[in-house]
Every structure is written in C-alpha cells, then in structure tokens.
C-alpha cells in the first residue's frame, strides 16, 4: 500500500466512524425532540441517556477529519477550503447552535422544550449540508475563473443529485439512530421505547434504501465518470443491499431476551453498519484517485513525506494511548446496567 493510500484510508475511516456516530448523535437529538411530549414512554430519556455523555466525543471526530484532511492532503485543503467557505460556515454556525442549546436544554429545565426544538431541528440540517461535500467533490459544481475556484451554489441547489444526497443523509440519520436506539432500549429493558424505535426503523429503512437508489440514478447523468467506476464494484453494492435485508429480517426474529417482543436489534445494527461500510467502500474506491474531480488526486494533494512519517507514528502512539480510554468509556455508558436503567440522565 502506498503512503497516499494509507492516508486516504485513515481519512475515509474517520469519515465512516463519524458518519455512524454523527447519525446517532443528530438522530438521538431529533428523537428526543419528537418524543418529548409523551409522558409515558422512556423514548426521550433513552435518547438523552445516550446523547449526554457522547456528543463531545462525537464532536472530536469532526475535528479529527478536518485535521486528517489538512495534514495528509494539504493540496486538497486549499481547493476544498476555498469552495466550501459558504457551506462550511453554515455548518459551523448550525453546529454551534446545536451543541450549545443541547447542553443548555439539560441545564435549564424550565426552557427545555424550546431549547430542545432548536437543537433538534438544527441537528437535522447539519447532516444534509455535511453530505453535500460529496457531490461537490464530484467536480461539476466547481467553476474556475481567472485561476480562482468558485462553488456554483445555483447549480448545486438545482441539482437532483444534490437532493438525492440530502434525502439520503436525513433518512439515514433517522434510520440508523432509531435502530441503534432500539438496541439501546433493548439493552436497558425499556420495552415500550424499544417498540417505538423498532417501528421507526422499519419505516425509515426502506426510505433510506430508496434514497440510495436515487443517488445512483442521478449519478448516471451528473457524474458519469463516477457511475461507471462504481459499477465495477457492483458485487459490493449487492452485498450491501443483502445486509439491509438481513437487518430487516433480524427485526422480525423472536427476541432472545424478552418474550413479549420481536427482533434481534444487535444483529440488525451490526448488519446495517456492514451495509453502510460495503457501500462506502465501493463509493470511496470508485472515487479514487480523485479527491476533487478532476483537479486534485490523492497524489497531487499529498503532504510532505517526512510529515507523513511523523504523523503515521503519532497515529500509532495515539491509538495505543486512547484505546483503553474508549473501552472504559464504552463499558461505563453502553454496558453498565446502572447507567442504562437510570431514570434521569442529567
């Protein structure tokens, strides 16, 4: 594997981890808003119990992505930084509102409702904008005039391809988070919340799959270079769809834990993560060597080799240091029954 490939793999790995964690994060914020007025179910509590300790950690990943991009591919940073000024700034503004009001909502109980609405809604717009970076890297929305690159916002926001991505981002966010929260409720023995989130996942799963097909459909016209290459990875895409059906079936299997409910949510979650992984591998592999078509490749944007070596070492050391911390964190908040079954997460 060349240095460039190692670097893009690490970067894409961060993007994948963040995508999963962020859908959980933004989705949980959304669901806690939706089910806030239902006094009886624990659905909101479950969402908050997950969200409270994790949002900071999730937020670190978005910074990790930016840093990995800048440090591994400074050449790509120049062009991306230039064209993403407006959308990137809007994402930052929304992210600031979202995180701050999420924290405020837990502290100022009297204003919890309005604060939760603000953070819940802004949290839904962020994934839609974040995913727009992908169609922008397909190249057709970047125009260079007198050596200065510009993002054609008018073209971007009149393109069906962009809307396919936005639809996919929002439906996936809601789908993945409802599925994960179903698993979390199951783990916490909150059966009513489990039923609610299982139902939501069953509705949203097919929608997100349709949106993925819509992306492929619009890609044929708008990014034919990518469409042709992605078709070389058809087996991966078929595998991805197959995992989707495995997850669907898992939600109808008899439950091992409780007699009164159906579904093996942990199995479904694993299958869905594999589904998204396979699809993102096919997409990412087809995208290579281009980072931004057709101007920047992973070779042309690559950092200085000496810097790469130093960074690579720091990644290994960092991973070794952090890994036990992550395990400890996981055990305290995802496994510990005392936490999972607490009534008030603040």
């Amino acid at each position, binding site marked *: 594997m060349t240095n460039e490939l190692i670097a893009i793999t690490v970067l894409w790995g961060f993007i994948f981890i963040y995508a999963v964690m962020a859908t959980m994060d933004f989705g949980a914020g959304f669901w806690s808003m939706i089910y806030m007025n239902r006094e009886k179910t624990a659905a909101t509590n479950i969402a908050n119990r997950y969200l409270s300790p994790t949002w900071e950690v999730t937020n670190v990943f978005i910074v990790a992505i930016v840093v990995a991009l*800048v440090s591994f591919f400074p050449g790509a940073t120049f062009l991306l930084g230039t064209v993403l*000024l407006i959308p990137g700034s809007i994402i930052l503004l929304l992210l600031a509102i979202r995180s701050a009001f999420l924290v405020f909502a837990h502290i100022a109980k009297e204003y919890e409702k309005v604060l939760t609405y603000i953070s819940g809604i802004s949290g839904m717009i962020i994934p839609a904008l974040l995913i727009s970076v992908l169609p922008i890297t397909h190249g057709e929305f970047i125009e260079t005039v007198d050596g200065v690159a510009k993002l054609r916002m008018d073209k971007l926001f009149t393109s069906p391809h962009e809307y396919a991505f936005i639809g996919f981002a929002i439906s996936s966010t809601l789908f993945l988070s409802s599925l994960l929260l179903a698993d979390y409720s199951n783990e916490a023995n909150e059966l009513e919340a489990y039923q609610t989130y299982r139902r939501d996942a069953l509705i949203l799963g097919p929608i997100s799959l349709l949106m993925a097909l819509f992306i492929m459909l619009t890609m044929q016209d708008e990014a034919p270079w990518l469409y042709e290459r992605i078709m070389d990875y058809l087996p991966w895409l078929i595998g991805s769809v197959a995992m989707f059906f495995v997850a669907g079936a898992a939600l109808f299997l008899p439950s091992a834990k409780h007699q009164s409910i159906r579904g093996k949510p942990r199995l479904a979650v694993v299958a869905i993560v594999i589904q998204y992984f396979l699809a993102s591998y096919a997409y990412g592999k087809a995208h290579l060597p281009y980072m931004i078509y057709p101007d920047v490749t992973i070779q042309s944007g690559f950092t200085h080799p000496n810097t790469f070596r130093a960074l690579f070492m720091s990644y290994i050391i960092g991973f070794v240091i952090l890994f036990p911390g992550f395990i400890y964190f996981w055990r305290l908040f995802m496994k510990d029954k005392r936490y999972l079954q607490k009534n008030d997460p603040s």
Partner: protein
Amino acid sequence: MDDLVIARSLFGTTMAFHIIFASLGVGIPLMILCAELLYQKTKNRDYAVMAKRWTKGIAVLLGVAIPSGTIAGVQLSLLWPGFMEVIGKVMALPFQIEIYAFFVEALFMSIYVYAADRISPAMRILSVTLVALGASASAILITNVHAFEGTPDGFRIENGQVVDVDPWAAFFNPSFFVTAGHVTVSAFMTGAFVLASISAYKMLREKNKRVLEFYRKALMLSLVVGGIFSILTALNGHEAAQLLHEYQPEKLAAAEGLFETQSHAPLAIGGFTDPDTQSVKWAIEIPWLLSFLAGNSFDTVVQGLNDFPKEWWPPLFIHTLFNAMVGIGSFLILLSLIGLVWSKVMKRPAFPRPLMWAIIASGPLSMLAIEFGWIFACTGRQPWVIYRMMKTEDAVTQSENLALLFILFAAIYIVLSIAVVLVLKYYFRRHPVINELDSQETGHSNHFTQ
C-alpha cells in the same frame, strides 16, 4: 473594507470569543482538581460541593467552548487556505496530537460528570486529572502553531515550493516552550481569578454564616492558585519578551515604542506611540531598563523600528495593548499577595470592602489581559502570517462574500454569550449552594446526579 481586513476581523472575532471559553476550559478543571484533592485530604464536604458546582459550570461553558473551538479549527482552512497548505505540510503534528488530547479531555469529562457516582474516588481524581491534562495539552499544542508563526523552523520555501521539511524541528520551534507555557499558566491564573471574583461577589451579598464560610474557602483556594500562576505568568512573560528581542525585534520595538536602535534603551510605560515625532507621548520613561529586560545587561543593544522597512512595521497601537497586559498582570500579583498576607500573616478573618471589590474585578481583568495579549501577539506579527516566510495577504481565501459571514458569526457569538450567561444564572439561582450544604450535612450526598 477589503477582504483581507474582513477575513482578519472574522477570524480575530472567532478567536477573541473562543479564547474566553478555552481559557476557562483549561483553568477551571485545575481548580476542580484542587478542590477534589482538598476534599480527600481534609474530608471537609465543602470542597466536594465546590468541585461539584464548578463542574456544573464548566459543563455549560464546554457547550460553547467545544463548538467555538471547532469553528476556529475549521475556519483556519476556510479563511486561510494558503496558510493551512503550508501548515499541513510542515506543522501538522501539533494539530494531530491535539486531537488525542481533545479525545482524552472529552472521554474523561463525560466519565467525570456522568459516571461520578459509579466510580471510586481515586478513579474520579484520575478522571479530572486527565481532563485538566487533556485541556492543558490542547492549549499547549494549539499555541505551538501560533509559536511557529512567529518563529518558523523546519522548512524552507524555494520557488513557492515547501522544501527541506523536518516536522519535529517545526514542532520544537524556538518559541514553543515559552509561548505555550505563557498561554497555559495564564489560563490557570484566569480560571482561578474568575472563581475568586464570583466567590467575593457572593460573599458581599451573603448573610448566612454557613454559606459565607463556604465562599471564604473557595476564595482563599482561588487566591492561592491565582497568586502562584500570576507570578509564573510574569516570570514566563519576561522570557517571552527576551525571545522577541532575539527572534522578532521589530515586534519588541513596536511593543515598547522604540524607534532608534540603541544600548541603554529606556523602558516607556504608558502613553501612545506617535510615528511623526518618533516618540511615545505622555509615557513614563525609565532609563536603561528596556536594555536590561531584553538582555540582562544595560549595554544590550535593542533594535528600533527605524532599522526595518516601514511596510514591515507592526501596528504601533500594540504598545498600549502590551502595557495593559503587563499592567493587569502586575496588579493581579499584588492583589493576591495582599490577600494572602492579610489572611495568613495578619490572621484577619475578613477582607475590607475595597479589597473585596478589587478581587471582584480580578476575574474580568485577567480575561481582558488574555485578550490584550492575544491581540498584541497576533497583530504584532503583521504583515506576516508566518514570520518572514508568508504574508497574511498571500494566505487569505480568494472567495468573496466575507462581510455577510462576519455578520452571521458575530451574531451567533452574541447570542451564545447572552445564552450562556442566562443559563448559568438560571441554574445557580435554582440550585443555591445552601441546599447542597444542607443535604451534605444530613448525609444525602449524591454526587452530580441532580
């Protein structure tokens, strides 16, 4: 206004906003750690209550510190793509390592806040220690990028290409330790004085003896920590000035309003630098002192501004910023010394009112000193973004529409500032300390779970 000025204003506003929360995010965890340690040592419940309340405060502040830090980090690439292209090639290590520090801080902050009732006291202390370490390490590493901008090392630019890259030489650039140390100890100092301010303010309004006793403990702890770190900040600041003398002489010259190169140079305190008469108007001049401060001897030759082409001159108003920063720092040292002598040596039970008001002012003043220091350090480096390597105007984005973004970001910062103050006031009014002191005494201690 041209785009460069707007870009600088936008990024400067972001930093000015973020540095408030970042400094408290570094300073307050240290205070929480001190309170936790004192609680383990004295078994006095007041310190546990203190740690708990400060933790609630920092949890709210982090709600702004983290997104504003994210904004600052990403805005670097959005506004200064030319700069980040060089940084990515040469100075990527501190950003990368900062991510690990950031992870340590985020993981253990959540553990400390949300799992406090399920982990042992030793684990709790370890968690808050890691939070403080993670926060300080982030500050040190990010400041290292700023240090590198002033004293770049580990690369050359040849025909517009970055060559001869040595990422570790860049990392350990000449001003790394001093600059990063300055930011860290001044953040510790600020966190302590902000808490001292709050405690003093509460004491003036409080009648209940039990509560007064609580705030008195908080005040004394804050004054001790604040005093130690204000002295360290001053010692380190002196080294920072000597570093300027060696590496960025025109910045020192502008800071001191010195035009002619000379030995036995005088130190000008106060006043305003006037480029027409080439003097500092209405300043108090102490003969020979600047030479001594710059090089430890009176015959040290200090370079004046006239040695440099005029387009390299930093803005001359930095003399005022520099004076204000040093002035506040000296005031804070004096204040903590008086406070400690008053209570420890003279054994007086209460501070006189004027001293209390001076302590109340210390928190906002130390925050101002940090703001002045950053503006001094960054505008004083102009016109360079990387000293003698890259001009700020060559690093700025070529995109337009910056004015609208400036307005949007400024509006968000105002909204968040107001909201964070309201939320803090709301929470602490709803949860007065007297309730917690009562519940502690009747034995219903429930760490962090209300």
